[in-house]
């Protein structure tokens, strides 16, 4: 069985991306409050919606990231194949 090593830099990168998603969702919430003229209390009371949105955005970002990763692996394999 092959062992996979999760590096600290990788965890750090994912946390930064997730935080970015939370900030993005909070900004969307703030924009929505301005647009629909509702109470600023919703910054707190809608936190569950913000969390759900942040999670959804994080997962959405995963798709292109995965594709890019697979592409890079493929290109690297092709390169190493031609060099040998």
């Amino acid at each position: 069985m092959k062992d996979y090593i999760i590096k600290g830099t990788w965890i750090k990168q994912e946390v930064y991306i997730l935080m970015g998603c939370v900030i993005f969702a909070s900004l969307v919430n703030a924009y929505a409050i301005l647009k629909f003229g509702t109470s600023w209390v919703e910054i707190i009371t809608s936190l569950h919606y913000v969390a759900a949105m942040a999670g959804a955005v994080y997962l959405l970002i995963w798709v292109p990231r995965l594709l890019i990763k697979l592409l890079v692996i493929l290109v690297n394999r092709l390169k190493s194949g031609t060099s040998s």
Partner: protein
Amino acid sequence: MKFDNQTFSKAIEDRRRFLKKLAVFAGSSGVLASMPWWTPLRAGPPGNSALDRVRLGIIGVGSRGRKLMLHLMETPGVEVIAVCDDYEPHYQRAIDLTKGRATAFYDYHKMLEMKDLDGVVIATPLYNHAPICIDSMRAGQNVFCEKSLAYDFDQCAEIVKIHRESKKVFQIGYQRLFSMPFLKLKEYVDSGAIGEITQIRAYWHRNNDWRRSVPSPEWEKKINWRLYREFSCGLMTELASHHLQVANWILDSHPMAAVGYGSINRWKDGRELYDSCNVVYKYPNGVNVVYDSMISNRRYGLEIQVLGTEGTIEGEKGKVYSEHPPASPAIVQLINELERDILDSVPIGGPSWVPDLELDIKGKWLTPDWSGEETAIQLAAFANAIREGKPIPGMIEHAYRGGVASLMGQFAMEQGREIKWPEGIEI
């Protein structure tokens, strides 16, 4: 369920505790202002002495009469000392249920001759409500009569007249008068919380033939009296009567006129009374009560919807809905807007407008923790009123208004014309 002595003793004690709580509620809140017929309940359950005991006879121990009898046997301070039915299986069943302690009669006149009787409970077919009520009141009895009051306008008026002369207790079997959700409904309406009432819609739908099994054909009309005109007014007096009473109560009035259509469109089995009824009642101030009943579809069950300019109340469900529900959080509104912009297409063949479908709002419970049994409460009120020797306020008025309103609907459908509220009785 087993109906042994232990079951009844426990049920009586449970009911005693419940009635004690109800007495505190009836005495301490403003309930009597809107429901004066709760007055006897302030007294609470009686003690166990023989002097506290109210001795009742039950006339008609069929399906409803049996249920009332079992309730009465569990009511503190009530003793069922007589039963009466001219249908042998019911007569025998009543003897069995009372363990032979009640004297049984085939003829109610004989029962009325009993010296120690304090009151009678009448649960017979509609056509003989009036004769039995009248004979009982003339015999000096306190009377509980199942709804609907009587078979025609004159009989309804006669019962009111004799009750007013007798000064005895008269109660009608409209159990919603003793229901907490309906009390709350009335309070909501009176407080203006749902704005101006513009319409009441009520319906009662079932999907069955409304028949009871008959041992042999000669018993058909005796058992299935609800299907034959000489004994009943069908869905209007057996079902609609309840909601019409509530409508009268909510609107503090009675209908001025009624129009309607009825038909036998599903159960063409020799019955004479409609299996589908549609009636519109005209009330003061331009308010209509729209009623329909059928026994060929039960998707919508039963409900009474009180429609106001600021909200709606569904009495049977016990919920109130605002016309202006609080808006969703902004972020949800934004997501919904994006979803509409992205996913909504302009229909080519369908409607280009948004259909006015039912609003999808949850509403609020009128009484979230209510689990009372209205029939039990109303029978306890009857027993207390007899004990106190005072008529129950407002009861004969509800009996008359509800009874006459249900007859108006039946007559309007049968005669194919507008039926006006009968003049003559001040109510």
